[in-house]
C-alpha cells in the first residue's frame, strides 16, 4: 500500500510529518498517507514520474499541502495542479504555519479547497488533522478517477 495512498501529504519537516501521521493514526488513516518531502516530489507523484513512475495511475482523494517547501514551493504546486485538467479536481487543503493574509489570498485565488493554519496546541492540531482526514478522505465523495474508499 505504500505507493497507493488516498492522502498525499506534502511536508518537508519530518517532525510535522510524524505529528500529522500520529494524528491521522487516531482515525486509522495513517496507512493511507503518502508523504512527499518537497514540491517536486509531490508533482512526481501526481505525474507518475521518478520514483513514483511505477505506481498505479489514480489520483489521491486529497492533498495536504504545506506552503513553505524546498525546491518547488506549495503555491507553485497548487498552481500546477489547478491549471492541469487531469489534476484540478483533486481537493487540495493548504496546511501551513502561516497566518499571512497574502498566502491565504494567493491560495484561494489559485483555487484551494481549504486553508488550515496549524495550531500550536497539540490537541487542536490533532483535532484539525483528524477532521481534515475524516472529511476529505472518508466523508467527502472524491472526484471520478481518484482512489476509491475501501
Amino acid at each position, binding site marked *: 500500500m505504500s505507493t497507493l495512498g488516498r492522502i498525499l501529504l506534502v511536508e518537508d*519537516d519530518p*517532525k*510535522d510529518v510524524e*505529528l500529522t501521521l*500520529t494524528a491521522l493514526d487516531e482515525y486509522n488513516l495513517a496507512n493511507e498517507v503518502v508523504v512527499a518531502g518537497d514540491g517536486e516530489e509531490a508533482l512526481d507523484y501526481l505525474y507518475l514520474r521518478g520514483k513514483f513512475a511505477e505506481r498505479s495511475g489514480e489520483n489521491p482523494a486529497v492533498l495536504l499541502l504545506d506552503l*513553505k517547501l524546498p525546491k518547488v514551493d506549495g503555491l507553485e504546486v497548487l498552481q500546477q495542479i489547478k491549471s492541469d485538467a487531469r489534476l484540478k479536481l483533486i481537493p487540495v487543503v493548504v496546511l*501551513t*504555519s*502561516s*497566518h*499571512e*493574509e497574502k498566502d491565504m489570498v494567493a491560495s484561494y485565488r489559485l483555487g484551494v479547497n481549504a486553508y488550515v493554519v*496549524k*495550531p*500550536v*496546541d*497539540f*490537541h487542536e*492540531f490533532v483535532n484539525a488533522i483528524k477532521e481534515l482526514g475524516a472529511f476529505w478522505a472518508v466523508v467527502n465523495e472524491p472526484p471520478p478517477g481518484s482512489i476509491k474508499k475501501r
Partner: protein
Amino acid sequence: MTQRRPQLHELSAIQRYALAVLAVSVALGIALLLDRFSFRAAEVPLLLFAVAIVSWFGGRGAATLALLLACVIFDYFFTAPYYHLNISRTDLPYYAIFASFATLVTWFSTVRRGVEADLRLARDRLEVEVAERTQQASLLDLTHDSIFVRDMDDVITYWNRGAQELFGWTAEEAMGKRAHELLKTVFPSPIEEIRAELLRSGRWDGELEKARSDGTRVVVASRWSLRRDERGRPLAVLETNNDVTERKKREEQITSLNAELGKRTSELEAINKELEAFAYSISHDLRAPLRHMSGFTELLQKSTASVLNDKSKRYVGMILEAAKKMGNLIDDLLAFSRIGRAETHKTAVNLEQLVQEALSEVKQDTSGRNILWEVGGLPAWYGDRSMLRLVLVNLIANAVKFTRTRPEARIEIGCGGQEPNQIVVFVRDNGVGFDMKYVNKLFGVFQRLHPPDVFEGTGIGLATVQRIVHRHGGRVWAEGAVDRGATFYFSLSKSQGV
C-alpha cells in the same frame, strides 16, 4: 529747460495800437526836425523803420494801422503838393515805391512773426512733453523691478534705479554700453532664437543669468517687450528683470530635499519589506518548533502517564503551558505587526453599530457574570471599520476582564465630546483600576500591570489599540485609580491620519 523765457512783447490791443501811433508819430517828428535842418529824404527810412518796429512788436492789426498812418503822413508831408493829400504826377512813382515798400516790410514782418509764434507754440508743447516724459521716467525709478531699454544694436538707452540696485552699475556707467556685454548675460537658448521670438510676438520671457558690477552672478526672471515705430520697424527693447537667485536657490534646495526624501522613503520601504519578511519568517519558522515541542510533549505525557510521579507530570504540564503561552505571544505579536503594516481602508462607519458588534463578540465570554451595560449615543464617523472594531473589542474585553472581581460590574461606553473634526469615545468600568503613576506603561507592547495568574493576557491589546488610533490621527489615554475603576479614552480625527 522747464522754465519758459519771459515774453518781452506781450502787449494788450490798446498798447499795440498806441505803439503804432507813437512809433509813426516819433518817426514823423524826427523826419520833420531833420527836414528843418535841411537833411533831405530822411522820412523814408524813418517811417519804414517805424512800420517795421510796429509790425515786429505790435502784431498784424497794429502793423496795418502803422502802414496806413505812414502812407497818409508820407502823402501829406513829403509829396508835392506838400501839406496836402493830393499827389503831384511827378511824385506819384516816389509815393508808390514808398507805399509798396512799406507794405512789403509789414507783410514780411507779420509772416516772420507768425512763424515765430508757431515755433514758440511747438517749443512749449515740446517742453510739456519733456516734462511728462521725465516724470514717467522718474516713476520707473520708483519700482523695485530693474528696468532698462536698449536699442536694436543692444546699446542701453535707459537704465532705472532698480537696474542700478540689482546690477550695481549707475545709469551713467550703463548708458551707451552694450547690455549683454556689460551684464555678461548667459542665455538658456541661442540668442538668435530669442531674437526671432521677440520679433515675431513682440515679447519674450525666461530666466537669464547675468553678472553684477562686482562679478557675482545673479539669476533673473527676464521679460522683454519690443517697441516699434509708427511704421512698425523695431525700435528698442524694454527689458524688465527680477532677481530670482534666492528663489532659485530655494527651488534647488527643495529639489534636493525631495530627492533625499525619495531616497529615505525607498529605504523605509526596503526596511518595511524586510520587517514583513521577518514577520513572515516568525510566523512560519518560530511556530513550527513550538508546535513540535508541544506535540511531542503531549505524546510523552500520554505514553508516560503510568510511570511518571505527580511532580514529573506537573513539569510536563508546565512545559505544555509555556509552549501554549509562547504560541499566543507570537500570534498576538504577528497580529500587532500586521496592523502596523496593513493599509487602512477608510469609510463612513456607524460607531453605534460597531459597539453593538463588539459587545456581542465580547459577551460570548461573560456567562455567569453580572454586568450592567450603559451604552450612550455615538456619531457616525470616518475610519477603517475592522480596525475600529478591534479597538472597541479590546477596550470592552479589558473592561470585562478587570471587573471580574466585582459582584456587579458596571461598564459604560459613550461619546466624551465631539468637535467638528474630532470625537472622543470612552469605555469606563468599575473594575480594579490602576495606579496613575504607571499610566505610561499601559500602552506599551507586552507591558502588563497585573500578574498573569490574576488577570491573563499578553499585554498586546492596548498597544494594538494605540497603534490603530494613531493610524486614525487620534490619541489614546486613560484615567484610573487602584480599586476604583478605569476609563479609557480615544480620539478620532477626521482630517488627519493615513
